[in-house]
């Protein structure tokens, strides 16, 4: 009976209403937030190569970047750990619009093996709603009924294990989560037969039994694609998608998710399991701030371990970058210029422009005595754990938090008077 109601064809009036639904155009927002510097977005021009984070990182990693000597490029290659793979937004129409909106407002770590995360933008609810609407406007309403009987869920769990979904996907909090499988038995395995991105959408079988791969195959699979890192933690699937959308995706995945040739009935049961299996709550530990060091800390050490390792990518010297000092200096990703250059002692000592348009020291103390710069570094740990610190954006933006030991180093350097 449910199926009869759900599967009926839309009436002419409904079809007309759908046809008249105004198209959302959030292109201006994609431009404002520079989404194409990382993401592929249907019908939106990609960022130029010199602004494209992913292309640059891939080229440096592959050795095809045209600038720099071989020695320099080899050294840079060793620095490239993140932003080589980023989810394509061509498949974002599988997601719930309200989840996309909330995720843009409060991003969190959905993909545990991807070092970089969605940055916490300075975005309004209205802007996030518009972007979510455009990304999902081509979504087809699923007419399949959701299977939520306990028998389906139980069978879905068996299928989850048989298909070895845990090779790529974490499912934190679920009984089926299997970190050792995910981490050690080779996320490369499901992709071993992948020779090119085109193969990801072909019908060629690519499942290989555990242990049958050669080390070369494993390395090749990781090197060529490494897209296993895009596999989301399935804990969030029930928030991100409807059960029907999960089933449809499993049966006919797109993009980085390889087809496992799952039959529709199996896909329904897998979706039922993913969407309904009980989850343990996650533990949130964010305060690991260490006491100040007893030894002396000078600029060279702080610069090498922190500022020149990560920070100066976005807080650069505009004069050396044709005027583009990065999002944290001359502005970008929707942020206005904050004039914060973290590439030299002189620059970091000269402060930044606050939201009030006035210059402020980045070492100024907050009411609890924490220097502002340190508060930003600590806030990133809170964000990584799913929280938000009001008024303080976590840094480094969209990247893993700086270790507590490195924060301790910065903290000590500031407390000691910032010795050159």
């Amino acid at each position, binding site marked *: 009976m449910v199926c009869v109601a759900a599967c009926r064809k839309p009436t002419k009036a409904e079809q007309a209403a759908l046809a008249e639904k105004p198209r959302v155009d959030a292109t201006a927002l994609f431009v404002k937030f520079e989404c194409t510097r990382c993401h592929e977005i249907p019908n939106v021009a990609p960022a130029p190569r010199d602004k494209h984070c992913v292309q640059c990182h891939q080229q440096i990693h592959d050795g095809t970047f045209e600038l720099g000597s071989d020695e320099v490029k080899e050294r840079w290659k060793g620095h490239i750990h993140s932003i080589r793979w980023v989810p394509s937004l061509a498949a974002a129409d599988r997601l719930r619009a309200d989840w996309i909106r909330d995720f843009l407002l409060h991003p969190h770590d959905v993909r545990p093996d991807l070092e970089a995360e969605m940055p916490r933008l300075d975005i309004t609810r209205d802007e996030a709603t518009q972007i979510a609407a455009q990304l999902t406007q081509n979504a087809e309403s699923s007419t399949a009924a959701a299977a939520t009987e306990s028998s389906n869920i139980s069978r879905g769990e068996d299928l989850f294990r048989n298909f070895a979904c845990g090779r790529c996907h974490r499912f934190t909090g679920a009984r089926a989560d299997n970190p050792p499988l995910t981490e050690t038995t080779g996320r490369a395995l499901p992709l071993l037969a992948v020779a090119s991105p085109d193969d990801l959408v072909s019908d060629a079988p690519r499942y290989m039994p555990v242990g049958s791969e050669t080390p070369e195959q494993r390395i090749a699979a990781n090197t060529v694609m490494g897209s296993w890192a895009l596999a989301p933690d399935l804990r969030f699937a029930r928030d991100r998608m409807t059960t029907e959308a999960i089933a449809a995706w499993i049966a006919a995945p797109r993009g980085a998710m390889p087809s496992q040739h799952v039959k529709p009935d199996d896909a329904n049961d897998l979706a039922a399991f993913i969407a309904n299996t009980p989850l343990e709550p996650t533990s949130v530990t964010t305060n690991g701030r260490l006491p100040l060091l007893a030894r002396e800390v000078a600029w060279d050490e702080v610069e090498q371990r922190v500022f020149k390792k990560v920070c*100066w990518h976005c807080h650069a010297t505009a*004069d050396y970058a044709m005027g583009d000092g990065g999002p944290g200096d001359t502005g970008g990703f929707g942020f206005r210029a904050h004039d914060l250059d973290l590439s030299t002692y002189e620059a970091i000592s000269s402060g930044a422009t606050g939201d009030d348009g006035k210059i402020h020291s980045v070492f100024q103390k907050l009411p609890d005595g924490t220097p502002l710069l340190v508060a930003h570094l600590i806030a990133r740990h809170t964000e990584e754990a799913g929280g938000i610190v009001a008024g303080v954006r976590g840094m480094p933006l969209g990247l893993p938090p700086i270790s507590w030991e490195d924060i301790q180093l910065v903290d000590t350097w500031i407390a000691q008077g*910032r010795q050159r």
Partner: protein
Amino acid sequence: MRRLALLVGVLAVPSLAFPCDNAVSRETSENIKLLTDTERMIAKEDLVSAAKLLKKVHKNEDSRTEAKRQDLTNIVTMRQHGELDVAAVVVFFQKRVKQESQNWQYKALLGEALFEAGKTDDAKKVLLEVHGKDVMPDAHGYLALAKMSNGDERAEFLKACAKRTKSKTLCVLDGDTAAK
């Protein structure tokens, strides 16, 4: 013909600007390498080497690096206390402060230049403003403030000066010891 070549050089399409150019351009552009090496020499208080490097920097390669070249030239000139036209350096940094009001490095450099020009009242006013916001970029502003102060205040400025340099002698004035 030379003029035409120069014109073509000036109008040439600028090189790509990579967002993480701190890493890219500093290792791929000869001119930027020279400029950053000059900055390192200035930070080490090795002004002779800085001046030598500056002579190798191409002029007018592009507007941004040219601006940087001029900044560094004026800093080196000011700190070498040589055949300097201090008045011109003051005018230069006054112009920079006007152009980039949010860059307080220029304000500190203006204070330093005013001090070198003997305009101590103006210098003190500017440098105390920079100090009050805790945005002094390097040791020299505090050195100037120390030279214009006495007693505990002078000692405090010398201490702040010493924190901001690797030089063991820069912040030691007659009869004073720089405490780190």
